[in-house]
């Protein structure tokens, strides 16, 4: 426990120090990073409630729409095609148990 906390502290310290040293030379798109992480967490929370198909559609749409700012019709087409592809590969072909939502999808 104590070791864990200490090493975490050291990690944070090093991280901050490294960033200060690096300065402006390497910029990071923190906005996108946080949005990606947020959508991952939301996907994890929503997955068992909405079911695989609905949440995957929303996940792909959110990533492409909000972060990459693609046009909505491209987003719709890609979201539908890739969700179907994932469903066929994992559920039909590999027979893994993808979660079903409350309306049975």
């Amino acid at each position: 426990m104590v070791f864990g906390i200490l090493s975490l502290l050291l990690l944070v310290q090093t991280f901050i120090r490294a960033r200060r040293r690096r300065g402006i030379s390497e910029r990071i798109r923190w906005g996108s990073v946080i949005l990606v992480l947020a959508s991952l967490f939301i996907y994890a929370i929503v997955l068992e409630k909405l079911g695989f198909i609905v949440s995957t559609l929303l996940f792909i749409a959110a990533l492409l729409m909000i972060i990459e700012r693609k046009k909505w019709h491209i987003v719709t087409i890609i979201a539908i095609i890739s969700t179907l592809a994932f469903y066929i590969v994992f559920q039909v072909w590999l027979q893994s148990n993808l979660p079903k939502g409350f309306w049975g999808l």
Partner: protein
Amino acid sequence: MIKGLMMACLGLILGTIGMDPVNATPRFTFGIRELYDGLTLPAVMMGLFGISEVIENVGAFIKQEVYGGEIKGFLGTREDWKRAAKPIGRGTLTGFFMGIFPGVGSIVPTIISYVVEKKISKHPERFGTGEIEGVAAPEACNNAAVGGTFVPLLSLGIPSNPMTAMLLAALMIFGLHPGPLLIQETPHLFWGVVASMYIGNVMLLVLNLPLIPMWVKVLKIPYSYLYTMILLFCLIGAYSINNSITDVIVMIMAGIFGYLLRKSKYELAPLILAYVLGPIMEPAFRRSLIISKGSFSIFFTHPISAIFMAVTFFMLILPLITKRRVGEGFQQDD
């Protein structure tokens, strides 16, 4: 070196999450029942290597590079082959034998084989201008090192780089337990992998030479579509290990953690190595201590363990000596 050891310690700490192997006390679980079995290994690996890589690329401003030029003359001339034959042989041997050691990776053998070629060569001053010996040996070496990493993976279940870690995760998703018993229990899988290497390499040569221009086009798939798919593969993969959301959340957390470590230039390989070995090592360690009634001298007084202790100590000291020598070789010549 110090960062590597730090990562190894962190891996050991992560490995203690879950039930105590000797007296079954839950440790570091914070009352979350799903953590009683420890963090699921494939989920941790996919997070550390997959998710963190995606986050890193999403966060970067750099656009992906597309190779535009044309490639021709894949086969080389007869003269080229004659000159490359021996370096290829030397590189392959160095690469394979160094690749067997977990944690060495493929970069160190590659550098060593380059330095060796430079030392042997009659005209070392031309190295660095596309000399064929200087290209052939390190390339053969790093390919052979990848083959070598399969030895600890399949015989002991020890992953020594991100790629074998992903393979280990894949094997575990299929319900196999990579470890000393893998060859005995599932020989069809083991020999299948061996056969696939032979077939795969021939196929690689036959298929890839004419298709190189096409593979270059694959690189043109926009990253925005690619990473969405990678994330989904990881999410579904993590979910379907135990059909549980906990694994997915563990994976995302590991992803964030891996991203921070990557950004602060920590190597992830020692972490995963220690995380895999920790739960195997701990019960044995505890058992020895119970036998010796809590005295650590058991590790030094018995001949076999004393020899291993000495070897370990030697391995810890060794890089300090060899690294300097390799470094000198580089500085002298360049």
